[in-house]
Structure formats: structure tokens, C-alpha cells
């Protein structure tokens, strides 16, 4: 069995696994963002209680608005520190409160988020509006790029892996040419002759995918830990069932590539030995 063939399988499957994990995680982020029905409207100047109530009433009367909540900059800062302060060590980074007064607007359905946001943005006293829509477009573009680029890369790697496995098995077939010719002479069917080589291909795929899964698992655990420290609000996949499905797909692809390579190689070679 060739180390080159196994090594190629490891590289291809690791990249394939990285691609799959990227797609799944970006999909999770897209899903989280697109289900977010919140609009945040910021006020960058000091406003009094009466002005707060006035703005709140105007927003509440817009079509699609379910609820409006006001958070002062002081309350927002305390809340942020309580959620992320222990992870980000905020007191070392920031000395002045950077957050504005905020109106948190709950919209009834995601489809109305954009129109509510536009209307709120047009109001006096509102300096900035943020909602999931803008970010969603950017993340969806990223998701498409990851999918397309990954598919092309994985496709090319799969072809390269298949060719190397085919070549490796072919060397084994050639080395056993004498055995094969005697097998054919005494009446062995092609199926009987092919099976050991197909099994060799499966072994290459199995060993390659086993090692690549170990690499993927260890790397992913480390990366997820680091990302969750740095960006705790990112909805990254850590559910074992979803990850298990990815690992299973990677293993199946590896074994399939090995089996296919073995089959193609021995079939081609048998045609040459009559």
C-alpha cells in the first residue's frame, strides 16, 4: 500500500472536511441572522424623558412593530460588561462608554424588518439604524463564495486523489501479474480476481479518512474554543450530532474514493491481461 496514496487521501479529505464545516457554520450564522426580527435605532445626542416617550410612541405606531424598548447608554454598557466582560477583559480595553441610547424594536415578522428599519431611519433624532438585513446580504455572499470555491477545490482534489489511488493499485496489479494470469488460467472469474484489489483501495480510503478525521476533530475543537473566547456571540456549530454527520460524510467519501480507484484500476489492468 502506498504512503503517497494514503497521504493524498488525508489531504483531500481534510480539506473536504474543512469545506463542509465552513459551509455548515456559515449556514448557521445565516440562519441566526435571518431569523432575527430586531431593529436597533441609535440616538447620538442627549434626550429627555418626554422625547424618549415621543419617539417610542411614533415607532410603536408603525406597521409591523410588536414592541419597542428603550435602553439608556449606561444600562446598555452594564449589560454588555456583564455578558462579555469576563471573556474580553473590557476594563483594560475601554475606559469611556462607547454605546449610544438605543431603541430596541421587535418586529412581528422577518419580512417587515427592512421596511420598519427604513421608516425608523427617516425619523428625526435617530442617528443610525441597524438590522440584520445588511449583514445578512454580506454573510449570504460569503456563504455562496465558500460553497462555490470549496466545491471547485474539493472536486479537483477528488480527481487527483482518485488518479493517485488508481495508479497505486495498478502497480500492485502489475506486481501480481503472474498470479493473475494463473488465476485466469485455472478458471477464476474477473470478480474473484478483482476483489483483493478493491479491498486494497478501500483500505487506502479507510486509513486516509481515519487520519483526516482525527486531524479535523482536533483542529475543530481548538478553533471553536479560540473563536468562542474571541467572538462569543457567533453561533458556531458544536452540537455533536451535526458534527458526527460531517465526519460520517468525510469517512464515506474517503472509502468510496478508495473503492472506486481500486475497481477502475484492476478493471483496466485486467483488460490488458487477456
Amino acid at each position, binding site marked *: 500500500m502506498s504512503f503517497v496514496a494514503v497521504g493524498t487521501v488525508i489531504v483531500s479529505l481534510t480539506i473536504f472536511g474543512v469545506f463542509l464545516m465552513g459551509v455548515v457554520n456559515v449556514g448557521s450564522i445565516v440562519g441566526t441572522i435571518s431569523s432575527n426580527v430586531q431593529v436597533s435605532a441609535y440616538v447620538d445626542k442627549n434626550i429627555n424623558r418626554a422625547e424618549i416617550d415621543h419617539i417610542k410612541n411614533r415607532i410603536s405606531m408603525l406597521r409591523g412593530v410588536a414592541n419597542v424598548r428603550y435602553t439608556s447608554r449606561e444600562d446598555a454598557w452594564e449589560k454588555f460588561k456583564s455578558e462579555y466582560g469576563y471573556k474580553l477583559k473590557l476594563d483594560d480595553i475601554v475606559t469611556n462608554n462607547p454605546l449610544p441610547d438605543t431603541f430596541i424594536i421587535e418586529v412581528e415578522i422577518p419580512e417587515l424588518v427592512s421596511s420598519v428599519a427604513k421608516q425608523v431611519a427617516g425619523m428625526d433624532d435617530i442617528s443610525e439604524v441597524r438590522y440584520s438585513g445588511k449583514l445578512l446580504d454580506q454573510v449570504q455572499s460569503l456563504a455562496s463564495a465558500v460553497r462555490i470555491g470549496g466545491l471547485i477545490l474539493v472536486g479537483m482534489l477528488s480527481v487527483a486523489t482518485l488518479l493517485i489511488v488508481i495508479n497505486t493499485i495498478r502497480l500492485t496489479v502489475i506486481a501480481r501479474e503472474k498470479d493473475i494470469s494463473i*488465476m485466469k*488460467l485455472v*478458471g477464476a472469474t474477473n470478480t474473484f480476481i478483482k476483489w483483493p484489489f478493491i479491498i486494497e483501495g478501500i483500505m487506502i480510503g479507510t486509513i486516509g479518512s481515519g487520519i483526516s478525521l482525527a486531524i479535523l476533530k482536533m483542529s475543530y475543537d481548538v478553533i471553536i474554543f479560540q473563536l468562542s473566547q474571541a467572538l462569543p456571540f457567533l453561533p458556531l456549530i458544536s452540537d455533536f450530532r451535526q458534527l458526527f454527520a460531517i465526519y460520517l460524510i468525510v469517512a464515506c467519501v474517503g472509502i468510496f474514493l478508495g473503492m472506486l480507484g481500486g475497481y477502475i484500476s484492476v478493471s483496466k489492468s485486467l483488460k490488458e491481461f487477456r
Partner: protein
Amino acid sequence: MIQLISVSKVFPNGFEALSNVDIHIGRDEFVFVVGPSGSGKTTLMKLLYREELPTSGQLIIDKINIVELRPQQVPYLRRNMGVVFQDFKLLPRRTIYENVAFALQVVGKPRSIIRRQVSLALELVGLQNKSGSFPKDLSGGEQQRACIARAIVNNPPLLLADEPTGNLDPTTSWEIINLLDKINKRKTTVIVSTHNKSVVDIMRKRVVALEGGRIVRDEQLGVYTNSK
């Protein structure tokens, strides 16, 4: 049992190895196929075990036209014949027992049957004490006897031997031909292609002589060279 009807074989380079050959070989016959190098002996043998296909004509073995067999049917044809070659074709990394047993393993015989039939075959060829040896440990004659054991281990009705004594000394050649004769007496059709004049002349079996791809002589109780 075997019938060649107007069989010709022309290779891609234009060489006509066999030309309009008609032969009928009956069950349990012993036939020598003789002729100079290039006369078509080996090509004839290859046609019989479907290593080659004729360019034209029919080749019938036990009422089956083997020319019309699909490639996946050829293994089943070969299970009904044994083939012995000049260069032995033993697997060097397997013992004599394993080499002979191989012919039964590929057809899926159970171990108990394999053990019994291999013992019988090795006894018939006189190698029962060499079953654990490897081919390199045997003399040329012993290796050829091992090949014969492999060829007859599943009791085929037909045994083809293509120059079986080509690499052997005269004494050993006799041993091999006598063994083939013994197998023929056990109701196996035997066809031997050979250059060995003395063996053919003494055995006085049916002789089919080829020259330039054509049959020039076919006689019972024949000799290698027709002095007429």
C-alpha cells in the same frame, strides 16, 4: 469432443498462424501435435483454451462453440480443462500444496474437498512427499509434475500440454509423457504439442502434423516425421 471446423487465425501484423484447419478429436484420445517452430502448434493450443479467438471458423468443445462464448463465460470453460506449459507457471511464493489447491480455491471448493483432491493429485504425480516444498526447491521434472497435478486436480475431461518437456532432459521428459499417458488411461482426453521426436515415435499415438499453419498429416499410431 473437440471439433475445429475451417479454423484460421491471422494476427494483426498479417501473419497467418493457422489456415483452414479441420480436426476432430474424440473423447479419451491421446493426440500429439507436432511441427517445426512457427507451424501453429501453440496458436492451436491457445485457441483451445480461449486465450486467442480464431479469425474465422468454429471451435466446438463438448457441443459448445467456444468462439461464441462471452468473456465472462470463459472461466467456466477453463474449469473443465487443465493446461500445462513449458515454463511451468507455478506461483513461487506458495508451496506445492498451495499451488495445486489454488485451482480448487478459485472455484470455491470447501477446504475438506480441497484437502482430499489435492492429496490424490499429488499422489498420482508422485509428489505426495513434496507438498510442503516451494517450487525453487524442486527439480524441473518435479515442477512440471506439480503443474500437471494442478491441471488435473479437479478431474477435467481435457488436458492440454503445450511443449511440456521443452525445458527437461530426456529421462525426465519420458517421466512426464508417461504420466500424461497414465492420465489419459484414466479417461482424460490429452493433447500434447511437442518437438520431442523420440517420445512421439516410441509412444505411437495419434499424430497431427502442422506446417505453415496447415495440417499436413493426421494419422493414428503415428511418428514425428513421415519418412514417405
